[in-house]
């Protein structure tokens, strides 16, 4: 394959999923700088292996590379072993003036925090499904797990989320009118 053509194909099939790759990397690493490094390294590896890629769409393929890279060279841990690191997590949170924080920002923080507190294997399945819209089959491919495992991880992950967000969700459904007043500002 001609080099220019390869660059163009790589652009169309891989680079366009950069936001998706960054999102996944950010949920893995929990901070912007590590996520950037991870995406950069994964992209380079993807490019070097691109001649062997058969397909039209590189999203799942890029995810597999990125995930393997994360678990092999960054932490040398599997998601089961990788634990939640409170310090890294809170350092990455942007600080904002509480007075100007809109309702939506608070909600975003709350939900993000709840997702971050999930165990690694639940979190990655959930992120791939909810934020990246992958099918169960694709999640199975990325996480190298059987389909049944994907289904049960998602089910348990969601159950835990519902549990940790129960108070907020109850409050929210009881205060729809109040919410509109705030966001309508």
């Amino acid at each position, binding site marked *: 394959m001609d*080099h220019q053509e390869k660059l163009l194909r790589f652009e169309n099939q891989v680079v366009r999923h950069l936001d998706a790759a960054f999102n996944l990397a950010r949920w893995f690493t929990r901070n912007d700088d590590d996520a950037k490094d991870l995406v950069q390294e994964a992209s380079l590896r993807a490019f070097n292996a691109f001649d062997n890629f058969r397909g039209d769409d590189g999203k799942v393929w890029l995810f597999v590379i990125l995930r393997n890279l994360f678990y092999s060279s960054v932490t040398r841990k599997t998601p089961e072993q990788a634990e939640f690191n409170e310090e890294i997590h809170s350092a990455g949170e942007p600080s904002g003036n509480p007075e100007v924080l809109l309702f939506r920002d608070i909600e975003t923080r709350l939900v993000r925090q709840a997702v971050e507190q999930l165990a690694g294997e639940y979190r990655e399945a959930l992120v791939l499904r909810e934020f990246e819209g992958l099918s169960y089959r694709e999640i199975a491919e990325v996480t190298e797990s059987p389909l049944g495992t994907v*289904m049960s991880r998602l089910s348990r992950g969601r159950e835990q989320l519902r549990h940790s967000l129960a108070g907020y969700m109850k409050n929210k459904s009881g205060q729809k009118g109040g919410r509109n007043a705030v966001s309508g500002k």
Partner: protein
Amino acid sequence: MQCQESKTILGAYLDGEIELMRSVELEEHLAVCAECGRDLEEQHGLQELLRNPSLRYTAPAGLRESIRASLPAESKPLRPKAEPSPQRATGLRWWPALQWGAVAALCVVLAGATLFWFRGQSEQKLAGQVVDNHIRSLMAGHLADVATSDQHQVKPWFAGKLSFSPNVPDFVDKGFALKGGRLDYMENQTVAALIYQRRAHIINVFIYPSSENRKPASEQLRGYNLVHWAESGMEYWLVSDLNPSELQELAGLLRS
């Protein structure tokens, strides 16, 4: 079905990831079991929370450029090029080069002309397919596979059904309301069809991957207006009975 099973598959049911028979069984159970009904409501509530687009992180500015810059500029040759052997300068050294140059130039011109002709032919064929698909979609009950104005439902719905992920913007504030999405078939492949509505006019937008780059062009076929172009790895075909200028307007919105 027992409550225990209902709880385990509820999420997969909402994701559209269980077989039809089981979803029928689940629906029967949900209709009679109040507790699992509440469970379903809570799942819906959670889905709504997770649909918030700002939960997703986006790549910081500059990352794309720095990745592009880090890619090797030239592929390394498999073996080093043989050094050109030094030749004695002669008066006719440039002559063979000129001949080959002329042949190459002729080839390029011929190939270009042939390609142009083929492209014209295949565009005509495509336009026909697009209009056929549009008419078929307007027949009863075939307009949308996922009928919703929520772009965050339409986009994930396509995931797993297509080998690419189309953008699904809603332009309801600009007078083009998103009505849903559908899988369709053209050019021997499954394509994404987005459905928009302008007043009483239905617009089909067909999207599929393409390596071409083509500026927008308009045409008319069998009383329908079409606008099509190709850029950033995707080909777009808009078709509707809407007037050409408003159809162009939607094309502009999709391209921006």
